[in-house]
């Protein structure tokens, strides 16, 4: 990464970390005002004209904070879908309205578990060659992870059909979705490692900090190793998607399967190493464990992604 991008990412990370740390639930308007919703919207439509690499930074911070908001469905997926469409008046207006906060959109790949559909003004139903724009009946699907909002979407009234641009595919959109969720899992793992290390340094048992015991220390080291590997795979996937490279699909499958699979182990270790307090509702570790488990299922299980990879061996 060029140094100027690296600096921009550091700044974005720091601002996002501060804002998201204030409250678990963040208003949509705060995300719009911060400029994150319009990050990938072209500048001519009031956005920042940035890339998926910048969106990925925000996604990672969302995971770190286990933030409850509509960013995944209404920014990452929505703007991503709109950007894959051929330019026309409806598309351009939607991009403008999403960036300004005037309209909130949800993207429907399948109708049962649509992220952030409740309260969305419009739905984009993904088809083989583009999206159907419309409105729909939305019924919330309560899930154990209270930081995510999923809903079933039915009775879509289509107002317009928009076509993909040359080369754009549903698969490409799903790769983005998978990589965005992998970023989230990476962020939540980092938060859990940091919390666990902090706790292990201060919690005393048998007259010494529990972090000085090898059993605890080595478990923390294992968390750090799998996070280091996740970071490589997630970084590679984000870069491949941002640059629209041919290896984006396999990179996204690797990032999603590894980062989201190991995240459940990492948060599980965090709960274990916090001892009794870690199992309490108040500690909040369960929030991360449930989110990690949901992330593992969203947009393809690890096994499903590995099956995609394995098709290349035949």
């Amino acid at each position, binding site marked *: 990464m060029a140094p100027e991008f690296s600096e921009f990412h550091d700044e974005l990370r720091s601002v996002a970390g501060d804002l998201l740390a204030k409250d678990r639930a963040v208003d949509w308007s705060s995300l719009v005002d911060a400029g994150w919703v319009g990050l990938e919207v072209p500048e001519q439509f009031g956005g920042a004209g940035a890339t998926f690499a910048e969106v990925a930074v925000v996604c990672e911070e969302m995971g770190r904070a286990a933030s409850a908001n509509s960013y995944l469905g209404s920014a990452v997926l929505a703007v991503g879908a709109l950007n894959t469409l051929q330019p026309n008046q409806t598309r351009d207006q939607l991009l403008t309205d999403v960036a300004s906060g005037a309209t909130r959109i949800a993207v429907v790949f399948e109708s049962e578990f649509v992220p952030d559909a409740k309260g969305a003004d419009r739905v984009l139903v993904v088809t083989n060659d583009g999206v159907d724009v419309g409105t729909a009946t939305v019924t919330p699907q309560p899930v154990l992870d209270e930081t995510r909002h999923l809903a079933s979407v039915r009775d879509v009234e289509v107002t317009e059909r928009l076509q993909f641009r040359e080369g754009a595919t549903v698969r490409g959109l799903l790769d983005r979705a998978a990589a965005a969720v992998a970023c989230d899992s990476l962020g939540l793992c980092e938060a859990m490692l940091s919390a666990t290390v902090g706790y292990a340094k201060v919690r005393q048992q048998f007259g010494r900090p529990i972090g000085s015991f090898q059993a605890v220390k*080595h478990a923390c*080291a294992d968390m*750090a*190793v799998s996070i280091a590997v996740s970071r*490589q795979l997630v970084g590679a996937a984000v870069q491949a998607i941002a640059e629209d*490279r041919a290896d984006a699909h396999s990179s996204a499958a690797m990032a999603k399967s*590894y980062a989201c699979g190991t995240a459940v182990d990492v948060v599980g270790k965090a709960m274990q190493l916090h001892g009794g307090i870690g199992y309490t509702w108040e500690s909040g570790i369960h929030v991360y464990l449930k989110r990690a488990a949901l992330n593992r299922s969203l947009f393809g299980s690890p096994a499903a992604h590995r099956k995609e990879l394995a098709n290349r061996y035949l």
Partner: protein
Amino acid sequence: MYENSPESRTQAQFRQQVRAWCEQHIPPDWRQSQTGVDDDEFVRFQKSWFAELHSAGYAVPHWPREWGGGLSVPEQIVLYQELAAHDAPRLVLAFVGIHHAAATLLAAGTDEQRRRHLPAILDGEIWVQGFSEPEAGSDLASLRTSARRAGDSYVVNGQKLWASGGKHADWCLLLARTDPDAPKRKGISYFLLDMTTPGVEVRPIRNAIGDSHFCEVFLNDVEIPAANLVGAENAGWQVAQATLGAERGLTMLELAERLGNAGFRWLVQSAPVDDPVVADRLAQFETEITGLRGLCRKVVEDSENGTVGPADASIVKLFYSELLQRLTDFGAEIGGMAAHTRLAKPMSSGWESGSWLLDFIGSWEWTIPGGSSEIQRTIIGERGLGLPREPSAV
């Protein structure tokens, strides 16, 4: 299947150049011809392959230009990627010389020591590392081999263990205690020992896979000229610490690339990939290898930029070792009874030769030496994460 990130035009040109060289110079039948060969043939082949690489400028790419190296870090990465992709033989015998010995001489040696040894290493001088002892394994700093100053020499007595390649070595990197009264890390000195010196006796130890490249080295009133001291007397621990890690980035990158190329390729070739359970495991391994390769590139680049983290090398070593062990275990498992009939592996191959059962048993050579996996986890916990030290540790 094995995609690479886009690269600059000069890197791409260099890649083409290395590819062309590999196609012309790597003996296509080396795996067959090196399987089951005796020691003399192994040494002959290693030396000739080293000379071949050296004549192309590929043997010591990481050395400074004035000593015969001088490839940029991105070029070194390309070189190791291509050597791995073309399944080149590994430099086994020259390893300690071109990495540890050279790093030590370049960082802490005198001009005279460098002039004496660096060109000799390029001519095939073989080195061995004399660090571990029977009572100093993971706790290396407790080593007992003594070096007593006597005039212009030191007189050394003791025993070294796990000296890899010891029976072929011309020279030894030796750690010995010069001040028995100082705290254990402050009384150690670093020497260059000529293995032909009277009083040096090498005895091979047969390891779990039947090889004998590990050796015991007995030192009985061995005289080392004071000019062969590296760094200051009693500053040997710092010299060793500074140079042990210096080479790890690129050598780990080479091993990761080998695992990702020939290693994984053979695993897929021999696997029943239409079995969904096998396919899932393979995809998991490919994912982990890809992550490892990324980590290794990052450690090399960060080392170059001076931004490498205090535990990054340990993370790489630990992850590689355990991944290698799981992967070779899987190769042995899916190989069925036929895997048990492979009684020899090709010499000069890597740790993933495709003789999976031997590779699996040999993988403990990664999880135990060079700081065992337990030691690596402690380093990651303490230096990387800042967790409190063991109360009893010094």
